[in-house]
């Protein structure tokens, strides 16, 4: 299943006559990490939710390769800003997702536990996990079944540098193994480190879209310059 290029045609989304996203048109074939940046309220999280099919939009607005969102939904997963874990142990949370995705083999889970170094917390109830541990478990749940696309909504915004580094390593390793990552972030140094492509939103519109290298090389408008300087 070839999910790229991603094409968005004239995407508009409004709530109570307020446009959250306006006239979004874009096409991307970038295989690595695409960063969605922008100030608070610019529509980043809404765009991720729409791409993941959590918000309904008119058909054919978004195409993943030749597929509709509903066709690729099973190959996608999302990690939310505040990781949502069930009131069960880490292992039971992983098993839950495994079962819901109808994966019979538990080997996948053992491999993920090993890869993400979750052994110490595997029997701990999710409510006792720290912010960083919760985020790691949420990522572990997201990568069960090897999805082709993962959406990460500010996955490291509340984490200390050690966990941030660990999660960036995981994101990079996923991207290097052909998982398309869409990630929102405010962290400029993180964008430099792991981003390949950037989409900058302002008031629901695309203000800039290019490679991350070009983003930092080119002279930008005041809004983006300020974002870069203070980010």
């Amino acid at each position: 299943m070839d999910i790229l290029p991603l094409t968005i045609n004239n995407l508009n989304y409004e709530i109570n006559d307020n446009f959250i996203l306006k006239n979004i048109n874009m096409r991307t074939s970038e295989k690595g990490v695409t960063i969605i940046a922008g100030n608070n309220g610019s529509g980043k999280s809404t765009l991720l939710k729409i791409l993941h099919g959590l918000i309904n939009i008119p058909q054919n607005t978004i195409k993943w390769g030749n597929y509709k969102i509903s066709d690729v939904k099973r190959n996608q997963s999302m990690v939310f800003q505040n990781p949502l874990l069930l009131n069960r142990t880490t292992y039971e949370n992983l098993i839950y997702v495994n079962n819901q995705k109808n994966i019979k083999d538990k080997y996948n889970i053992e491999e993920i536990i090993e890869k993400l170094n979750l052994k110490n917390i595997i029997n701990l109830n999710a409510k006792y996990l720290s912010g960083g541990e919760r985020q790691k478990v949420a990522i572990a749940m997201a990568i069960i079944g090897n999805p082709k696309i993962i959406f990460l909504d500010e996955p490291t915004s509340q984490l200390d540098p050690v966990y941030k580094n660990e999660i960036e390593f995981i994101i990079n390793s996923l991207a290097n193994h052909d998982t398309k990552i869409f990630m929102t972030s405010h962290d400029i140094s993180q964008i430099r480190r792991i981003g390949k492509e950037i989409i900058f939103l302002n008031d629901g519109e695309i203000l800039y879209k290019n490679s991350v290298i070009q983003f930092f090389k080119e002279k930008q408008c005041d809004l983006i310059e300020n974002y870069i300087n203070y980010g």
Partner: protein
Amino acid sequence: MLINILETAFNLIISFNEDLFEIIGLSLRVTMSALLIAVLISIPLGAFLVFYKNRLQSFIVLLANTLMGMPPVVLGLLIYTLVSKQGIFGFLDILYTPTAMILAQTLLIIPIVVSLTYEEIYKKNKEFDLFLSSLNLTKFKKLKTLIYESRYALVTVALTGFGRASAEVGAVMIVGGNINHFTRVMTTAIAFETSKGSIELAVALGLILILISLIITLLIKSLRKIS
């Protein structure tokens, strides 16, 4: 005088007085049966209502909330008119039987469990909706997950229903008739024994009721802690 009454009441309890424990046994049987039936109907219904937002759903939620505060005697009277010989369900011949009492208590508990279940599942759905939708689950699977995630809260809901039913006197008195060795339960026995001046048995039953209430409260407290 109070000391003497309490002493006699305690003696009745610790000597396993046959009449006393027959009444307790019937009370628990009636209330547990009512609770089981009510929970089997109300928890799925309350949870189901979260997923279907329409006028009927709003009406059922409003009705459940309203009936939560319905006076048991009114409910008893309603059931009486339905199951008495002249009533439309008179052919069932259940008036003045434990079955009628179970029916009354079931109808008393249902609005409580529906309403509180709806509240609990609504809260959990708000918390987990994005996550569960992200997994592309069907409504039925979401419902199953939300019920499981609310398990401790739902046991608390059931215990609340049990507490309400076990303390109820008006409805079971009307539809059960308080017949000795047949439909006499703790609350009706307390009312009856007090009225005829046999206060010791009434106090013994009252102590048992308080004990049951204490156990329920402790269970609810510890379940809240776990959840």
